[in-house]
């Protein structure tokens, strides 16, 4: 077992330190924008931050985010273990499918899922078979359920990546000693993946803080709802509440990081083929559980979407019947969606890698703060991040041509979504044994060569998982795309949104199905298969 994080960390190379600092500064864009707007606004902060009208939604936000993080951590870890380390039938297929609920934009995903679960919905029959009454999800329980269904991939992907890189020897020994799978999991596997589970759960926590679509549809009053609904009516208040949310995110993440620094890092890396734990008589119940989860989280929304699409395709007066280009029209947005998603994912991983090295390899104290800053971009609603980037880009000379360019778009995406790859990237960096790097150095390999030949291959599954999360989130991103993309740049998500707004449910559904299919292919090719092969 290597202990990568321990011992004298040494001073980071100057170039790395400077790059890390620059990245950290870039991520302050939303926070500084909110601070500036709050400072120049007229809101009485002391009164606002102590008023029940603020504290009550704040409490709701924290309760919802915590509950969702916990449930997603449990389910995500279970799914990850079953689909990577056991002889579950079709495990790689399930690994791909279980990651996909992440890609539903919440405005259409929550709409479709509630339509399926509600009375008269498509799940009424299946629910009736198990004796359950259909009920429209609402309030805290509804928001908690829907958010858990949609955010579990935030845990699933990094934990799967970590599991794929784990040495099998310990599990093997434990099993040979006669331990049951559950016991092996608890005593051997769990301690090794704690970092990845925490990383994923934190993302779920931040996502639940930032989400607006689900809580409005399910009628649960959170701080983000107040930020959103007041954005035009009482902008000073909305901005001051946004600042509160951002500071809260920085504090939570910095605290978690500070605690993690004190934990002894003890994570090994696998050197030969992975192990498959035989599930024995639990094989079929486990399959039923995994399939059941996928049916509700992915099948629920897809069932409603398919129904809507079917109506549109077959209806006599349907828009699609009138407009024969309906499907061909989706080709260009689909290409745009995949292209901008991959570019953003690669940029996010590349940009955050220096930060990960600083905080993991060199244990730089500033890493704690940088983590918080990166996270703050993710805890804020996309609209706020978009406006912040617009504000700062407007300060630059127009002759640079950056305004509403692809550069600005990707920058805004990375500021909003980069947090998703940071934690997976850190986990990946931590998994590279120090001694390998040291051996390579003694053999005379330069820094760049060591990075390319030693670190990168070992980190690949983790980086792919982090990049995969950014990819899926970028593909479903809406407000940043609408406000900062070059004019005329359309993604599947902007199309779907326009169709929902215009009440063309059939077209919205078709677009959503294409989005899910596209995400499935990309997740399979870039994340799941890669993790298996490269580990």
């Amino acid at each position: 077992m290597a202990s990568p994080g321990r011992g004298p960390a040494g001073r980071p190379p100057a170039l790395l330190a400077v790059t890390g600092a620059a990245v950290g500064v870039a991520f302050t864009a939303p926070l500084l924008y909110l601070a500036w707007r709050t400072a120049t606004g007229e809101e009485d902060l002391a009164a606002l931050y102590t008023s029940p009208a603020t504290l009550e939604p704040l409490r709701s936000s924290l309760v919802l985010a915590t509950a969702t993080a916990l449930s997603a951590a449990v389910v995500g870890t279970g799914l990850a273990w079953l689909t990577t380390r056991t002889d579950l039938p079709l495990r790689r297929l399930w690994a791909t499918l279980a990651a996909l609920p992440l890609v539903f934009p919440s405005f259409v995903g929550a709409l479709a899922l509630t339509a399926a679960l509600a009375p008269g919905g498509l799940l009424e029959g299946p629910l009736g078979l198990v004796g359950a009454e259909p009920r429209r999800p609402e309030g805290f329980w509804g928001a908690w359920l829907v958010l858990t269904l949609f955010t579990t991939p935030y845990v699933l992907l990094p934990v799967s990546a970590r599991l794929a890189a784990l040495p099998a020897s310990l599990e093997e020994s434990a099993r040979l000693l006669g331990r049951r799978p559950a016991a092996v999991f608890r005593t051997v596997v769990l301690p090794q993946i704690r970092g990845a589970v925490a990383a994923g759960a934190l993302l779920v926590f931040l996502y639940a803080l930032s989400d607006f679509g689900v809580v409005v549809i399910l009628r649960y009053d959170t701080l983000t709802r107040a930020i959103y609904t007041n954005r035009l009516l009482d902008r000073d208040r909305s901005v001051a509440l946004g600042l509160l949310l951002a500071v809260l995110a920085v504090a939570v993440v910095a605290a978690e990081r500070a605690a993690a620094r004190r934990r002894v890092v003890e994570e090994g890396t696998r050197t030969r083929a992975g192990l498959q734990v035989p599930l024995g008589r639990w094989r079929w119940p486990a399959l039923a559980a995994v399939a059941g989860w996928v049916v509700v989280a992915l099948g629920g929304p897809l069932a409603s979407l398919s129904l809507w699409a079917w109506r549109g395709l077959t209806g006599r007066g349907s828009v699609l019947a009138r407009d024969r280009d309906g499907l061909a029209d989706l080709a260009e947005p689909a290409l745009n969606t995949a292209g901008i998603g991959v570019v953003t994912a690669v940029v996010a991983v590349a940009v955050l890698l220096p930060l990960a090295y600083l905080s993991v390899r060199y244990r730089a104290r500033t890493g704690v703060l940088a983590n918080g800053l990166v996270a703050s971009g993710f805890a804020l609603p996309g609209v706020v991040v978009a406006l912040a980037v617009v504000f700062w880009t407007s300060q630059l000379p127009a002759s640079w041509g950056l305004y509403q360019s692809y550069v600005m778009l990707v920058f805004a995406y990375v500021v909003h979504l980069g947090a998703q790859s940071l934690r997976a990237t850190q986990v990946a960096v931590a998994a590279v044994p120090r001694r390998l790097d040291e051996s390579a150095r003694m053999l005379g390999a330069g820094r760049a060569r060591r990075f390319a030949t030693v670190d990168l291959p070992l980190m690949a599954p983790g980086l792919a998982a982090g990049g995969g999360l950014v990819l899926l989130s970028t593909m479903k991103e809406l407000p940043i795309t609408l406000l900062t993309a070059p004019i005329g740049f359309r993604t599947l998500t902007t199309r779907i949104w326009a169709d929902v707004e215009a009440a063309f449910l059939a077209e919205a559904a078709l677009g959503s199905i294409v989005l899910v299919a596209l995400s499935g292919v990309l997740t399979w090719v870039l994340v799941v298969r890669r993790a298996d092969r490269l580990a």
Partner: protein
Amino acid sequence: MAGCGNDDDGDDGGAGADEGGGTLTIYSGREEDLIGPLFEDFSEETGIEVEVRYGDSADLALLIDEEGDNSPADVFISQSPGAVGFLAEQGRLAEIDESVLEQVAEGDAAEDGTWVGLSGRVRTLVYNTDLVDPATLPDSVLDLTDEQYAGQVALAPTNASFQDFVTVLRVQLGEDEAQAWLDGMAAGDPPTFDGNTAIVEAVGRGEVPMGLVNHYYAARALAEDPDLPVANHFFPEGDYGSTLLVTAGAIIEGTDDADAAAQLLDFLLSEEAQTYFSQETFEYPLASGVEPPEGVPPFDEVPKTRVDLSELGGGLAATTEMIDASGLTR
């Protein structure tokens, strides 16, 4: 797509770069499916190139304000008067030429000339024809607080159109009566949704028997699925339940394409465009003497009382406070 780059005027926000046939940049809060064809027709007829950024009306208004003097936008098309009102308050809108303003009735344009109404939607009660006998539906939206409708009417309390409708109640009936109506609706613990599309879908599915929406959603749902059991119930004789809400067009202050911008608004009020609104998007035309679409109440049966819905300071904010106070948003 053309227009992906940062070509010519607008983007630089600087002076100059304006001659006939330049590019007009439109920020549109109305969806591409509905209004895009009109922009294309305008471009064809006038030779003026247009590029359009589509988005949520409120978000686009915030964007224009954040861009300030550098805004690439020349024209802003808004779903509701609220967003244009916000921009007018921030001093971001230019005064529209009288020749354009006078094409619509008084009350369908801003008093200070900063925006002009382009089309109208009336509020209505959509109901499931399998579950509801239209004879049992009330003549006034105010009667929906009756016992028999408790919990039967879906609402979208965070939706701009619903808020505008409540504003009309508040201004016309006074705060107390409007609040009493909201409280009465909330007492039945009605299902709430985030928008009109979701309500019409839920009504069609039979989850909830009826819902308060804008009138054209049912028409669009029926266009997709003619067998969907939904229909509109229009509250008769000028009831507030049939309040007319307008979409608005405005010109951004400091645009270097003021003439082309005015030309566009003029075009959107022309007989051709107004007929398009009536026939293609099932909306009320506001100018050029075009008739409303079939199946909606004639003009003289929708309430004449127009309220300046663009008034945000203490206007819309007061409305949302009342909606929040009723508990409908929690």
